[in-house]
Every structure is written in C-alpha cells, then in structure tokens.
C-alpha cells in the first residue's frame, strides 16, 4: 500500500516535471516566434528598387564621370541623411549613360574616380578599377556593379536598389 503511494507520488512528480518543461517551452515559443520574426523580418523583404532622378541631360558632359546622389529605394521616415545613396555616372553618348556602384566589390568601401588617370581607387584595401569598372589590381574579386540608367525627357534617372553584396568566395 505504502509502495503504491510512493509510485503514485513519483508518477505525479514526473507528470509535474513534464508539465513545467512543456509549459516553459510553450511560453518561450509564444513569445519567441513573433519576436524572432520581428527581428529577422528584413531577410524576408524583397529588395526594393525605384527610379530616382539624378539631374538634367544638360548637367552632364559626354565623357565625364561624376558622382551623383539620390534617395535609396525605400527610405524610412527617420533615416535622415542615411537614406542617401550615390553612384558614379558617366555620359557616354547624347542619351546613353553608365552608372557604377560606388561600393568596392572587395568589402564595400566607397571607390573614388580619379579623372586624370581614369581609374577608380578604393581607400580601404587598395582595390583599383579601370574606367569600364573592370578590376585593374588589388583584392576586388569582380568588376564594379552597375545601376540601370534611363533618360526620361530631359531627366536622367538611376534605378536605385540594394547595396550590391559580393557573395562569391
């Protein structure tokens, strides 16, 4: 009789232990799923893109490469100056432009156009690109990324999109 009571007590405690662990797990899941979902939400968002004006046709001389700035494709209201983005824009024909990303394909630092030498230089780890964006020397694994450009009437527009991430090893 006493042994039965003891076994019953053990079963009861085992049940209670499982109940505690189960309820703890459930509580963690109830809180954890939405919290993790909230924090990792940017991963699920599709990369936005938007056409942004960068100047009038007459602002750009054929053959010149200049920096242009524009708003990123989905600025948040409190982003302030961080909503800005830039590109190196070259007018190659009356209505034809090339826009290079300013991000070095090595680690994303802002490359600078050296007009006299017609090269892009990276300040961080010494990457160099020719004027067509191809790698000239240094550690960059690929050519500079490019943005789409279009001319609408007299306005030059760049399709603003994500910061290009080099994903190749």
């Amino acid at each position, binding site marked *: 009789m006493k042994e039965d009571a003891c076994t019953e007590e053990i079963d009861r405690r085992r049940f209670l232990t499982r109940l505690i662990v189960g309820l703890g797990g459930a509580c963690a899941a109830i809180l954890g799923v939405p919290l993790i979902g909230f*924090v*990792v939400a*940017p*991963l699920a*968002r599709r*990369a*936005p893109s938007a056409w942004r004006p960068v100047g009038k046709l007459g602002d750009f001389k054929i053959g010149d490469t200049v*920096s242009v*700035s*524009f708003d*990123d*494709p*989905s*600025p*948040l209201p*409190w*982003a*302030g*100056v*961080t*909503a*800005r*983005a*830039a590109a190196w824009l070259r007018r190659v024909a009356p209505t034809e432009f090339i826009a290079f990303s*300013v*991000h070095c394909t*090595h*680690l*994303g*630092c*802002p*490359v*600078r156009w*050296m007009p*006299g*030498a*017609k*090269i892009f*230089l990276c*300040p*961080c*780890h*010494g990457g*160099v690109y*020719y*004027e067509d964006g191809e790698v*000239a*020397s*240094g*550690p*960059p*694994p690929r050519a500079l990324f490019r943005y789409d450009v279009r001319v609408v009437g007299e306005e030059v527009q760049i399709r603003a*999109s*994500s*910061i290009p*991430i*080099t*994903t*190749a*090893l």
Partner: protein
Amino acid sequence: MKRLLQQTWTWLDDRLGLSALIGPSLKHLVPRDAKWWYVFGSATLLAFVIQVVTGVALAFSYVPSAGQAYETLKFITDHAPFGSFVRGLHYYGASAMVLMVGAHMAQTFLFGAYKYPREMNWSTGVLLLGFTLVMGFTGQLLRWDQTAAWSVVVAAEQAGRVPLIGNWLAKFILGGTTIGGATLSRFFAIHVFIVPGLLFVFIFLHLWLVLRHGISEPPRPGQSVDPKTYRAEYHAELEKTGVPFWPDGIWRDMVFGTLLLIVIVVLAAVFGPPAIEKPPDPSLLQADPRPDWYLLWYFAVLALIPPRVEGYVMILAPILIVVVLLLAPLMGSTGERHWTRRPWCIGVVLLSVLLIGSLWIAGADSPWSPNFSAQPLSASVVGATSGPVAEGARLFHDRACLNCHLIERYGGRRGPDLTYVADRLTPNDIMIRIVNGGGNMPAFGATLKPAELNDLVAFLETRRRGAASAQLAR
C-alpha cells in the same frame, strides 16, 4: 549614532541575508602566493563596470535614430557638461577592457590555469573575449559618423561571403538592403541589450566557476595536474597555507584597479574621445573608413591575404580560431602547468603578440591604401621647372601615379618607391611597366598619349641618386 547604525545594519542583514550571501565568497581561501599576476581578471571586470556606468550615462542623451544619432553625439561631445569626458571614459574603458582581457588570457595560458578542473573557466573566458570584441565593433558603429556607416557596409560585405546564407546575413546586418533607418537601431539593441546581457550571464558563470574550482595556484615546475588527486591536493594546500580573499587577496586587485581607473581618467581628460567625423551620409564619397585600434590588425589581414583564398580565410579563420580557443583545454587538460616545462606555450603567446602587433602596425600604417592627399611635387623635388621633366612630374601627380608611389618622401606607398627608379630600371623598362602594368600596377597604355608617356619616362629617368639636386643646381 554608531550604535544606531550598527543596529540598522544588523536588522537589514538579518532580513536581507547579505552576509550569508556574499560572506562565504569574500572569505573563501585563495593560494597565498597568488599575487600580482592575478589582477588582470578583476581589472577586466572593473573595465566592464566602467563601460556599464558610462554607457548608461551616455544613453541619457544619445538618440539611437539613424537620422539623429550623429547630432546627439555632437551635442554630447561639444555641449553637454562632462559629455566629452564621459565619451572619453567609455572609449578608453573599452580599450582597457580589450587589453586586460588579452593580458588575463595570456596569463591564464602561461600558468596552465585552463587545465583540469578549470577547462570551462577558460571556455567561458573565450566567449567573453568574443563578446568584448563585438562590443568594441558595435560601439564604434554607434558613433554613427561616416566611418561607422561605411564599417556597417564592410561588415555586411564580409557576411555576404558566407556560403548559402551570406545574402541573408548581409541583409540582417544592414537591417534591409541598404544603410538606412533600420541599421543603427539594430546595432544599438545589440550593443546595449543583447551583448551586455550575454556578458552579464557569462561573467556571472565565469565568477561562479572561479569560486567553484578556486583560484589556480601559481604553477611549480614538476608539479603535474592529475585529475585523480588534484582537487584533494589543492584543497589540502589551501587549508594549510591559503589566505582569505577578503582582504588578503583582493587588496592587490583594488590597487591595480585604481591605477587602471586613473589611467583611463587621465587619458579621457587629456586626449578626449575619438573625433566624430563627417555625417553618416552614404553619398559623401570622400571617406576613408578604418576600425578602432583594437580591430586594426584584422583590417590589415583583409588587405594582406592573397585574393584567391581571401573568401575562405575571411569565413573559416575566425571559426577556426574560436573552435581552437574553445577546445584548447581539452587538448591538454592534465600534466605540467609551469611554463618552463611547456616552452611551446611561451612561443604561442609570443607569436600571437608578434603576429597581432605586426598586423596592427601594418593596419595603422596601411601602405596598401592610396594617398589621396598627395600634393604636386615641388620644383626642388622635381629638379626642373619647365620641359619634359617638369611636365612628366605634373603628369605623375595628375595621372594619380603619386597616389600610389613615393618620390622622395612624397606620395603613396601602395606601389614601389620610385625615388631611385632609374637606378634599377632602364627607360624602356619604365615605359613597358607604365603601358602594360603588371603585378599590382594597372596598365595605363590606353589612357596616356605618346607625348605624355615620354614626359613621364623623362621625369622618372631623373629619379636616381643625386640626380635631382644636380639638375636643380644646374
């Protein structure tokens, strides 16, 4: 009055149980000869406490909004009473924490204090080192100036190299697909809540392990760690010769901690906090992002590893280092502890210091970066004021050669020093190098006119020992 205070304390202690809670920890016995080598752990803890209190103070004025953080930091630095000083304390406190955690780790390793039964003391310490470096990096980002914004991009680009999930990681770091409103907020949450929370948990665990296993006794040559007998021998020795941690052990920690605090205060008062650069506007391209000093060595690694293996090194090396450090105790948890019986351990520490030190110097110097502030060469350097040589010198500046090459002490150091280039290369060789490039040198054949090329070669031909001064004298 004294009696009233005594009665109040007795009442409070009875109800709160403070003496019962803290007393045994404070009075626990420590090895008598655990002296000045043992102060680095408590110094790290003190630096962490300084970080917590100065960080909380800064949070009273800092607004973690991408659009306002820069202005609030300017306000804290330039207008808030003691703002610059508190920022300085936070910066030098961070530096002290990194240095002390490194010294603590080296001492633990050299003393073999990671061996049985303290393997987990070491492993939790390794995690604390990692969290400290994460705090250092994210703290620099909260400065939210131009360097901070570009550093986030660099971090995202590195994460992007991770196979399969790289793009996701990059998005997670950026808080989207670009730098923007969501970027700073997440680094604020990481720097102020998540990593400090982890630090509190693991510091508590680390301290608990120190109490559980006791402070390791200074090693003696020939005294080997045998798991079967170690604990009994340790406690027997402690009973015989140990001294209470309070006050016999802790006074040295207090003295060293006070000195450390004084150094931090003096540095903050004399040198102030790191300067706040231009605003975090990604469209300002005159940027030269560099990490704070404690990560400069890694900045150098990223510039110096061969591009072909860079991606693998970037991803695998940190993982390998963490795994090796975490598992280090398991590779030798028994046997001799004294460094004279483990000479390789001195080699490992020296090699680590030399490696990180050399990379640090290289990172601070960063000769691989072009010198964007190179000015045109003066007539005294060129040795001519007109003609092909002077024209070549002008082109040497205008065509960005000077950004990467030194002429005497002027210019960049990305490429070879050309001060005496004519001593080692013929005009033909020079011309071929300029036209075709080679090695780390871009080819300029497509962008230079023949006359310009001739002028450049004419200038470089004069770059031989004694030539410039002779020409100028003429």
